[in-house]
C-alpha cells in the first residue's frame, strides 16, 4: 500500500475523535507509516483541531515517535549501562561515521536508519546492536563494518 492509502485506514478509524485521541492516533499512524510525516501531522491538526506545533510538541516529548522515514535496515544501538561499560559509545561513533548519519536520521539512499535505545535486555551480549530485530552480540569496529558491508552487498545483488 502506498502511504496515502495506509493513512486513510487510520483516518477512518478516528473519524469522530477529539483531541484526547491524539497519542493513540499518532501511535497508529506510526504503526502504519513507520514514522510521523509532515502530511500526517497536518491532517491530524485539521482533524482534531489542534495546532501543528502542539502536535509536534506532544510527539517530540516521547522517544517512541519518529519524524524521519525508517531505513530499510533499522539499526538500534544499545546505550544501557552494561553496553556503556563495554564501550558502546565508541560503537555509536563508528556507526555514525560508517553511515554518515546521526541518531534518528536515515541515510540518503533510504537503506539505513539509526536509533539509540536505552537497554534491549541482552546485557550478557554487550555491547549489542539490533538490526531489524536481529541481535548482534559483542560487536566492535570490525564486526560493524562487516555487518554493514554485507547488507550493502546483498542489496546490490
Amino acid at each position, binding site marked *: 500500500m502506498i502511504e496515502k492509502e495506509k493513512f486513510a485506514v487510520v483516518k477512518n478509524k478516528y473519524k469522530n475523535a477529539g483531541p484526547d485521541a491524539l497519542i493513540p492516533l499518532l501511535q497508529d499512524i506510526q504503526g502504519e507509516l513507520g514514522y510521523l510525516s509532515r502530511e500526517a501531522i497536518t491532517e491530524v491538526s485539521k482533524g482534531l483541531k489542534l495546532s*501543528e*506545533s*502542539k502536535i509536534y510538541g506532544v510527539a*517530540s516529548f516521547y522517544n517512541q515517535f519518529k519524524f524521519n522515514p525508517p531505513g530499510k535496515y533499522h539499526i538500534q544501538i544499545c546505550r544501557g549501562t552494561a553496553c556503556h561499560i563495554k564501550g558502546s559509545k565508541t560503537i555509536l561513533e563508528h556507526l555514525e561515521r560508517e553511515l554518515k548519519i546521526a541518531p534518528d536520521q536515515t541515510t540518503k539512499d533510504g537503506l539505513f536508519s539509526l536509533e539509540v535505545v536505552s537497554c534491549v535486555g541482552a546485557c550478557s551480549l554487550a555491547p549489542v546492536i539490533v538490526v531489524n530485530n536481529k541481535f548482534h552480540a559483542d560487536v566492535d569496529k570490525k564486526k560493524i563494518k562487516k555487518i554493514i558491508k554485507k547488507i550493502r552487498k546483498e542489496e546490490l545483488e
Partner: protein
Amino acid sequence: MISVKINHKTVKTTPEKTILEVLRKEGIDIPTLCHMQGFPPTGSCRMCVVEVKDFPGLVPSCSYPVRAGMEIQTHSNRVLEARRTILELLLATHPDDCLYCGKKEDCYLLELSSRMNVDRRPYRAVKKEMKRDIASNSIIRDNAKCILCGKCVRICEEVQQVGAIDFVNRGADTCVASAFEDSINLSTCIGCGQCIMVCPTGALQEKSYLNEVMEALNNPAKTVVVQNAPAVSVTIAQELDLDSQVEPQAVLTGILKKMGFDYVFETGFSADLTIMEESSELIERLQQGGKLPMFTSCSPGWVDYVEKFHPELRDYLSSCKSPQQMLGSLVKTFWAESQKINHDDIFHVAIMPCTAKKSEAERSDLLTGGNKDIDAVLTTREFLKLIKLHGIEVEKIESSPADTLLGKHSSAGKLFAASGGVMEAALRTAHYLITGKNMEEPEISTLRNLREHKETELKVGNYDLKVAVVYGLGAANKLLEEIKRGEEKYDFVEVMTCPGGCVGGGGQPFGADQEKIRERMEALYKIDSRQKVRFSHENESIKNIYAEFLGKPLGKKSHELLHVRRTNQ
C-alpha cells in the same frame, strides 16, 4: 472580608484572591516571570515565592489563594535567597551578551538581575547554543536567550488562537518552536508580535530596519519619505510626556524633519482614503448583493489569519489595501510624478505600531512592477531608538505641519488606531454617501470601549446595518464560527489583531497595561472631538486627489493602486 498579616501589618481582603493579587494591591511589587494578568496561573517560574507562617516550604503567590489569618513575609532573607537562586540558575545557561542584545534596558531578566543584586556566577553551565531564527520578516527568535516562561506560547495559543509555537522536545532539550522546529515564517505565525510584547528576555524581537533607514537618510541620492500611523503619535506623546495641549502629530512631524526625512506624510491621510474606498465598496456590495459581511483589511495580521485559517472567507475581506500600502503606492506614482522624482530614488519609511506591517510590505501581491512600495517599516519602539540615536531633545522641537498633497487628515482617519475606529469612520462616510447628509452625531459611543466584542445596529437611508467590531484573533475566530454556522448575520465587521486595536499593537513600547492603552484611545477621541474636519470625505487633500488623479472611489485608477487581488503567500 478576611484579614491577613503582610510583613507584620494587618490587611483586610476578600478570600477569592491569590496571594499575589493581594500583595500587588497593597503596593508590594513581587517579581514574576511566567505570570500573566487575566490568565490562569501556571506557577512554573517560582519567582513569586513568599514565606507563609507554619507552611513547610515557600509558597508561589501567583497560584496560592489567600486564607484568613495567613502571616505572609514577602522579603524575608529566605525569600530573597530563593528568588536570587532561581535567577542565578536561569542565568547559568544565558548567553550573557547584553551589550549586543536589542532588548537592553527593556529586558526584564536584566532588570531583575539588577534588582536582586546578582553580582557573581555561582552556577557554571554550558551556554545554550541555538540557531537564531531570522527568516521571518517580522519576528526574530533567539532561543538561546529563552527562559521557557511560556508566555509567548500562551498568548499565541490562548489569545490569538494561532498556535504557531509550542514547547517541543523534553527535559534539558526543551525549547519553544514551531512544528518540526521550522522557522516561524513557515509556520502559521501571522507576525502580530504579541509574543514579543510578553517576552521577558531578548528571545523574541522585531526584525529591525534601523540600519537601512539610517543608510537611506545619509544617502544624498535618495529622497526619503516617511509616514506614521495614527497610533504612533499618541503613543509617542505618552512615552515622551508631551504637554496635552500640543498636537502630538505636529511635534512628531517636527522630530522627523529634524532627523532629516525629506517629506513627512501621515498615514491618517491614506486612512481617509481607505474609508472612501471601503465605504464605497460596502455600498456596492449592499446594492449589488456582494459578499457580506465585508471584513476590514487594514490589520495585516488579521488578513494573514484569514488566509491561513479560513481561506474560504478570503473574498469577504475588503479588497482595499491597508492605509500603509495605499500611501505607499501613491507616493511612488502620483506624488513622484508631481514632484518629478524617479520612483526608484524614493525611499519610503513607515512608522507603525505593528510588526506584521513589516511582512505586509514584503507581500508579493503588493509589489508594483516587482518593487516594494514601502522600503522599510519601523515599529514605534524602533522609532524611539531612532530619536535617541539622533540625540534629539524633544522639548526643543518646534511643531511642524505635515507636507501637503498627501498630508492632511480628518479625525476620522485618526480613529483607525483604536478598536472600533475604522468602523466609526467608515459609517460616517457611508452615511454621507447613501443619504447625502452627514450624521448628526458622528460619535458612535457603543463602539468606544475596550471590550473584545462590540456591535451596533444603525439605520442609514434604506439600510438597516448591523455591524460588529472585535479585537484579538481568538475573539475574531469565535465570531467567524458563529457567522459560518449562520447564527449571526452582519453587514460589516471590523477586526483588529491586537488588544484595543493598533494602540495595543505588537510594535508598541513595552510594559503597556490596559490603562495605558485606554489612555491612548482617550487621546484619539480627544483629537476627534476638537478637530474641525471629522469626516473623511470632507478632507481637502482627499477631495483634491480624487479631482486631480484618482477620479472616483472604486474607479479604474483606484483599483489599480488602492485595491489588491490577494494571492497565496
